[in-house]
């Protein structure tokens, strides 16, 4: 109802419950910042947004936006503060545009300003400005049913922003759009968030959204934040297999060794020692749980004969002798996995794959480029 531009940061430390599911998070989003929230289905992403928007009441905790408290509740007692949805100034945009089908495009966008007490003509002027900003001014007089999915989502963004939210919540807003439309929308959201400096949370399953739009990323898992940090850090060194798969990297967990590496035990006791070329600060203590990350493309594959390594038990850093278990097509080549370390994908260019005469059951030497290995303490 205050209706101004974004006034301050979001600080939320809340627990909420939906069905048997429990969410417990602490997040802070600065003015002008976009936080990407990633996580598998059922990890609590939607519950988080619903809690912030006021659609569900927290079981305990505080949600603060700038100098306003949107919700405050101590465990076991009724909420002392629980602002109704309409008074929160929180804009929520989901996968579906949900335009009001009985109103024209401009009436849809003018709905927020009018509901907040601006006069009809002022609200329409406001709406027109927002339609121009999203590049949909020419659609103003149309009905939602006459628009394409991408156009509808553009109008929905204009409608959300025209209500001048002080916090913007985006729930997979590009998921229902085709690739070029999604790219255009991504650019638009980036520009508008930068312009308005509204603190924004973007829930997504597409790491591209995080890379293009977000400064920081949070990974939700089972209702808790499993990892939170700059996007490059989170995607570059994922803490969970979910993020590793999302970022397209191999995540190996094992035990730290004296050489600054990680020793991994694969299937049937197969061992692999991953040693990075450079040591980062914060080397895990010997024997402590540690993880290593490398890209599927950072693995060199050669016939056993070429490497001069007999299939002996000797543990050579960054190398394992593997039996090909599965071959899949990958962009520009082939992705394979081995019996010994089924969790690691290895990508080869098509030509290399042909030269190696790849087939399931083939025994080959796999060497990970040390420069591409990074190691962290885990847990």
């Amino acid at each position: 109802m205050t209706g101004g531009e974004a006034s301050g940061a979001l600080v939320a430390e809340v627990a909420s419950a939906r069905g048997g599911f429990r969410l417990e998070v602490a997040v802070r989003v600065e003015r002008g910042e976009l936080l990407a929230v990633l996580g598998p289905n059922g990890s609590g992403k939607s519950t988080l947004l619903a809690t912030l928007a006021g659609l569900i009441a927290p079981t305990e905790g505080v949600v603060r936006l700038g100098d306003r408290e949107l919700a405050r509740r101590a465990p076991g007692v009724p909420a002392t503060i629980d602002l109704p949805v309409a008074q929160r100034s929180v804009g929520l945009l989901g996968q579906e545009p949900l335009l009001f089908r009985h109103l024209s495009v401009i009436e849809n966008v003018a709905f927020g300003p009018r509901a907040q007490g601006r006069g009809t003509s002022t609200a329409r002027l406001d709406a027109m400005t927002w339609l121009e900003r999203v590049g949909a001014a020419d659609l103003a007089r149309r009905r939602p049913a006459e628009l394409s999915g991408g156009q509808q989502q553009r109008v929905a963004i204009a409608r959300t922003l025209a209500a001048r939210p002080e916090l913007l919540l985006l729930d997979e807003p590009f998921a229902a759009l085709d690739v070029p439309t999604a790219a255009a929308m991504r650019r638009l959201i980036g520009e508008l968030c930068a312009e308005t400096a509204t603190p924004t949370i973007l829930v997504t399953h597409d790491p591209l959204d995080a890379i293009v739009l977000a400064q920081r990323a949070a990974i939700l898992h089972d209702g808790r934040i499993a990892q939170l940090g700059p996007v490059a850090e989170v995607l570059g060194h994922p803490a969970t297999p979910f993020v590793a798969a999302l970022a397209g990297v191999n995540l190996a967990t094992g035990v730290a060794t004296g050489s600054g590496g990680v020793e991994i035990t694969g299937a049937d006791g197969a061992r692999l020692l991953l040693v990075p070329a450079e040591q980062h600060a914060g080397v895990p203590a010997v024997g402590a749980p540690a993880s290593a990350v490398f890209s599927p493309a950072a693995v060199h594959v050669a016939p056993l004969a070429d490497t001069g390594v007999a299939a002996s038990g000797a543990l050579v850093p960054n190398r394992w002798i593997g039996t090909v278990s599965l071959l899949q097509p990958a962009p520009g080549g082939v992705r394979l996995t081995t019996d010994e370390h089924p969790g690691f994908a290895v990508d080869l260019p098509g030509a290399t794959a042909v030269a190696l005469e790849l087939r399931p059951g083939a025994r080959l030497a796999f060497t990970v480029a040390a420069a591409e290995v990074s190691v962290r303490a885990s847990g």
Partner: protein
Amino acid sequence: MTGTTAAPATRRETGADRRAARVPALLVVPAALGIAVLALPLLALLLRLDWSAVPAAVTSPAAVQALSLSLASAGIATACCLILGIPLALVIARAGRRTAAVLRALVTLPLVLPPLVGGIALLALLGRTGLFGESLALLGVRVPFTTAAVVIAQVFVALPFLVITVEGSLRSVGTRFEAVGAGLGASPLTVFRRITLPLVGPGVLAGTVLCFARALGEFGATALFAGNTAGVTRTMPLAIYTAFNGAGVSEDTAIALSLMLVVVAIAVLLVMRGWREDAPR
């Protein structure tokens, strides 16, 4: 057909589908009998009609009086049903599962009850010795056997039609658009006025038509609770009954008056169709 974009979850029915899904021949016979049961009596009514007597019958002061009373009372009753029924439908549609079930059962009861029972029940409540009737009498208010009683009886039997129709409409529209409206800063009343009501517009219209038609045809509860006084409580159905049973009056008058009600009912249905085709989908 499907193109490159993702196929919609439900494919549209095509002419080819309808061709493949033929009605079994065995079912055509009961279907034809069904339509005959509904249409033949009305046809017989038209055939029995002495057309030369129609103008006199329908323009007689008694008929005009009854028709105007019917239209006026049914109109007022329908307005009352809209004012009471839409909020009630909203409460039921948004209530918890158990509350909704109880309220819906209460609303449906007058629908399945014989209208005569409704009339007796209304007398028990508002009659001279009724639950509220005595207190009202002390205030000098007498409800039974007045035009107000006609309207109350019509509201009692017609309200369920409106509530059930609008509630179904509210349920199918869901609450997602209302949540969007609230998120844009609209108060609950603004959301109701500018989002909920327009979205259930077609349902409200259908409910209004059913409600009006039911009020127009109301006989049993009116007869018991409001009586049969010409110009005060004698609506069209009561006028038809009186003409049919009345001494010295021919059946033809009753048939001609019935024809008038049929014509009014058809007109209402046609008006509704016209509106619905204009309505945004």
